[in-house]
């Protein structure tokens, strides 16, 4: 469980060291679009990529493209951190990258649809500001694809 009170002192201190202030004025897209009309992209920081893609470097603010029709068998993880469990991801990719859940939601018309591509960063070893350029680049790609909503998963 990631309740800080449940963790050993060294782990609690390590995680609290990552408490950084806001990146700027609040960012907020007002609600209004019904969920069933939203086009959703999945964005993870789990360091996922296609087997044929270049692995993430030790620290790396770039992202990898995960095509919308990507099969689980083609997905690998090159995250630098060793401080999380990977056996669950080996058992079920949806535990980290819930692509099948979102395909079901699209099929059931709960959401409007899914993006042509999804995306993975590798969240480790860099300050939050390091991701600004690639995240803003990604936003432009999402707009061009008609995506209005991103669903984000850490690891």
């Amino acid at each position, binding site marked *: *469980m*990631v*309740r*800080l009170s449940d963790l*050993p002192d060294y*782990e609690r201190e*390590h*995680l609290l060291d*990552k*408490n*950084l*202030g806001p*990146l700027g004025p*609040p*960012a907020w897209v007002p609600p209004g*679009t019904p*969920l069933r009309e939203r086009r959703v992209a999945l964005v993870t*920081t789990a360091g996922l990529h296609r087997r044929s893609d270049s*692995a993430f470097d*030790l620290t790396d603010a770039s992202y990898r493209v995960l095509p919308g029709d990507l099969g689980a*068998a083609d*997905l690998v*993880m*090159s995250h630098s951190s*060793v*401080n*999380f*469990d*990977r*056996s*669950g*991801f*080996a*058992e*079920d*990719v*949806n*535990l*980290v990258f*819930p692509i099948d*859940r979102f395909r*079901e*939601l699209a099929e059931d018309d*709960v959401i409007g649809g899914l993006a042509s591509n999804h995306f993975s*960063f590798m*969240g480790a070893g860099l300050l*939050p500001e390091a991701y*600004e350029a690639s*995240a*803003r680049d*990604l*936003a432009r790609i999402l*707009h061009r694809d008609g995506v209005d*909503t*991103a*669903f*984000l*998963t*850490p*690891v």
Partner: protein
Amino acid sequence: MSAVAYYLESAGIATTGISLVRENTKALRPPRFLWVTFPLGRPLGLPGDAAFQRRVVLAALALLDAPSGPVLEDYPEDVPDLPGDDVFACPVRFPPRASGRGRWGSALLEEIALLRPWYALSRERRGRTTVGVAGTLVETLAERLGALLDAPERLPGTLAELTELKRTLADLRAFHEEAVTAQPGDPPWREVRRLLWRESVLGDAMLTLRDRFDASGDPRLRAFTRVLVPRGALED
């Protein structure tokens, strides 16, 4: 995660998602996140449980209707306790650890040979493997790691060598973990961790490297120890 959400939202893409460390998310004040109590590495909670995962996803998507933000909501459901570790049986008995014997390569290869049938079973059952980051056979990776360990005076000197070492270890660990969890069911992750770090030759190899890198005095190697061995490696 919070940073990517913030920058996407500020560029006009509405964001929502999962937070694993509430305090970090609260401090950065991204637009919308659902905090869950699940273990690191398991943001959707339970592998193979589509209904559970769907509930988590829908709870996070519901935050898109919040009239104002930032929103950081607590998800009310915990993951149920895993079956006791006593019901999890490691399929192999690991060979003796190689520390100090100067035969790391052969010890690592012996361990891989023991695990390989279970790895094959894992691939068959899961229909996939997460091994494949380094782009070569795990036996070749084991020989590479063994050569490094069998020559204590030889330390990686460049960023490229450290990057290659990271990828080598990623595949060796994935091979090990997939093999020991080849049998069906949600693997008890603490026991998987204990087997790697307390019993296996591979765990011993990484602990040995960590000690050498720490003792080297080289700041880059000492920094690398953070991606070699997890903070809680020897807790179990």
